[in-house]
């Protein structure tokens, strides 16, 4: 149980440090234009990687399971202009149905 509390404490401090480094070290100064261009694209690259890892990752291996169907539903639903809530909660419903019939 101590392990759990150490993990929580360190992750809380580390997450705060990661979020605060820029605002405190950089202040109101601006970044060089080249760095700015990278920052502008970071969310796309990191979010895509998170989606891949959380959809297909299973520890250190890749698997194709009901999660992929759920995520595909969310993507299609959003393209069809469904609200965010419907797209995300629908993903769970689709994954649950897929597991129920499998």
């Amino acid at each position, binding site marked *: 149980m101590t392990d*759990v509390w150490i993990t929580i404490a360190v*992750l809380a401090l580390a997450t705060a440090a*990661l979020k*605060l480094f*820029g605002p405190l070290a950089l*202040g109101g100064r601006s970044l060089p234009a080249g760095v700015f261009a990278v920052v502008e694209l970071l969310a796309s690259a990191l979010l895509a*990687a*998170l989606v891949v890892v959380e959809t297909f990752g299973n520890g250190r291996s890749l698997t194709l399971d009901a999660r992929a*169907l759920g995520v595909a539903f969310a993507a299609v639903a959003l393209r069809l202009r469904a609200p965010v809530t419907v797209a995300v909660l629908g993903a*769970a419903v689709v994954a649950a149905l897929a597991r129920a019939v499998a």
Partner: protein
Amino acid sequence: MTATLPPDRTESARARWRAGIRRGVPFSIAVTAIAVSFGVLARPVMGSVAPIVMSIVVFSGAAQFGSLAILAAGGSVGAAIAAGILLNARYLAMGLGLAPSLRGRPLSRAAFGMAIVDSSWAAAAQGDGTFDPWYMVGVTTFQYVGWVIGTIVGVLAGSAIGDPRALGLDALFPAFFAVLLIEEVRGRRRTAAAAGGAGIALVLTPLAPPGLPILAAALAAVAASRMRP
């Protein structure tokens, strides 16, 4: 999807915060559901109190799910911490991007920095590399409330809910990030950055420790920034 653009910067801080609150409502509902799944999954591993404390002080889906998976599999504390930090390393980049848009004393800049989450940071981007800080705080506000309340519900309802996989709860988290991604990706350079990031993560997942594939995906942003817009 009706895209609500970040409001004009000349509006008062309160108006911008309110606009952010409205933009954040759908995210908050989704985040609450994801937090329920975290509470359900975490209780057998961490007990009843620790998952709630974790959601209050860490407030990060990626780090919480990532470190939980390692602890649940019997991994070491060091591995769980390292994975959580790597999964959150993107906040370093997000904070650096936000910083030039912040004014005021260090304490005020720090408060805005703490309000960074993926959805609000992306929503507050003005498209020219600058950010609307109060709008970002607004988008974050109810996501934090929902994250904590959802975790409490998940912990309490855990035994009634049973196997979270049977309910498809493990699909909530990637679906949420897919929604954020789809709203973010417009134009050639962002599409290239997303495709590159996804490819890097696919290739590295079997080869590298958890978290590293996501951090390495930042290289795709560097490469895409060299492309013509």
